[in-house]
């Protein structure tokens, strides 16, 4: 059992998070701290501005954004190349990924370049997926993406890692994505 302080290392404010969180946030310093590993580590935090405006209550969902570079080779072996891409991985565990899919995969496939802005005073959904778990997904996403194009991944390198808060609208029992406008039943995410 290891005891870690829940104060921001920069401003000494209380970090934001719930009981099952693995990643905690400081709004004023715009950082996220992953406590799931043996040693805590800071990551820059960005607040995303909604692409689709709605009037419902809003909650932030945290995502890991991995800027990666990977080399690929076609299945016939005559083509090779290198791709740089941002992979979005939810920093929360999706309960029903089989039925509703992975939001991170949709974001990654659409090459989102959302605008960032100031953090508003909104609730944050507990981020219970640490960097250790999330860092597996860029390879899976890249493999899934390139498999459709009959390509294989040779090597994948993570260049930078950051955290992003994406606003979601709470509409009854659904969470509506403010970037793509898709609705997810709350039971699928929690």
């Amino acid at each position: 059992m290891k005891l870690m302080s829940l104060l921001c290392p920069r401003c000494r404010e209380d970090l934001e998070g719930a009981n099952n969180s693995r990643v905690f946030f400081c709004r004023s310093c715009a950082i996220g701290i992953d406590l799931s590993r043996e040693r805590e580590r800071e990551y820059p935090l960005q607040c995303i501005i909604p692409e689709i405006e709605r009037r419902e209550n809003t909650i932030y969902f945290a995502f890991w954004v991995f800027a990666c570079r990977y080399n690929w080779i076609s299945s016939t072996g005559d083509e090779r190349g290198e791709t740089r891409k941002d992979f979005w991985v939810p920093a929360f565990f999706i309960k029903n990924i089989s039925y509703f899919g992975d939001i991170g995969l949709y974001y990654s496939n659409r090459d989102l370049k959302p605008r960032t802005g100031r953090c508003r005073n909104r609730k944050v959904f507990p981020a219970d997926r640490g960097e250790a778990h999330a860092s597996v997904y860029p390879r899976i996403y890249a493999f899934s993406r390139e498999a459709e194009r009959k390509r294989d991944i040779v090597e994948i390198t993570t260049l930078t890692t950051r955290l992003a808060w994406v606003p979601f609208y709470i509409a009854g029992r659904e969470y509506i994505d403010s970037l793509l406008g898709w609705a997810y039943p709350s039971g699928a995410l929690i």
Partner: protein
Amino acid sequence: MNVSVVNCNHCGGPLPVVPGQCICRCAYCRNPYYLNLDQPPAVVLADEVDADEARGMVLKALRDPRIEPGFRTRTYFERATLFYIPFIEVRGIKAGWAPSDPANPGGDGYSLVSFEYLEPANDLSAISLEVLDRNLVESAMLEAEQIPFQPVEMRRRGVVLPASPPRFSRGSNESPDFRETVETHLRVIYFPVWEIAYSYRGMVFYSYCSAVDGRLILANGLRNHRRKLALSLLGSFSLALLLGRSVRLAINLAAGLRLSPIPLFTALVLVAGAGFAWSVLFPYLWRLFAFREEISFSGAFETSRTISYREGRLLKFSRRFVRRITGEPDEEVPR
């Protein structure tokens, strides 16, 4: 379940470390801490149903036609106990090729699949709740608020069953495929259940209902045997009638033929038949009177067992009769 104490890094004051709680705050300097626990986090489903409502649900269930009519009216409620039953929730994600597309080099079919299952983290046979349906817990998890695990508060309200380590008796819900497990999360979920104890003529019965939404889990009572009794009496009467008609027919036949051995033979056959019928009927009637049958049901599910050997009326009567003859004093039946 142990509650250990860790000291605050700032003031040295004791930090209350509660199993399943990752966040705690020093009571003196109010500094927050995160505890990297070795055990899975624990939550409790909020109980919305109180003991009176649970008792009402059980009373409603005892109106079932399968239960003896007098059972409900003569039942005396003994006590209501709140049990917190631990379940281990295993959630995870697997990635890879679909089973229909093995070792596909570069085709489609590569996907992410989530798996999830609930396992009771305790032996539920101790409180006769082996039949607790996982679907009930899963539906309650969708409806109920999930509050942090607070052992002191919960122990004050009811009985907290200890959560044993997960056994992983069930594998993935998928058939063997080419997907690999990417991540697995464990969580302990405490499901609150009301146990209502009530007595009927000295026998104690237990029924269980969910403390989240009041849904009945299992009801126990005495089986309604009046219909069986009526049917068996009707059967005996029909058999007697049939035998009487046969005897009369045989006598008439023997008299008509003027053969002396035939009535004797017929009478013997009839006596043997009557004896056989009685030997078949008697254990059934004996069982009907001397034993009672306890029925446990929940919706369409039903199971029963024979109970109450002591309380069988015929047996009781026969014992009392024997005691009167022998002059032994009546002994108290332990209740």
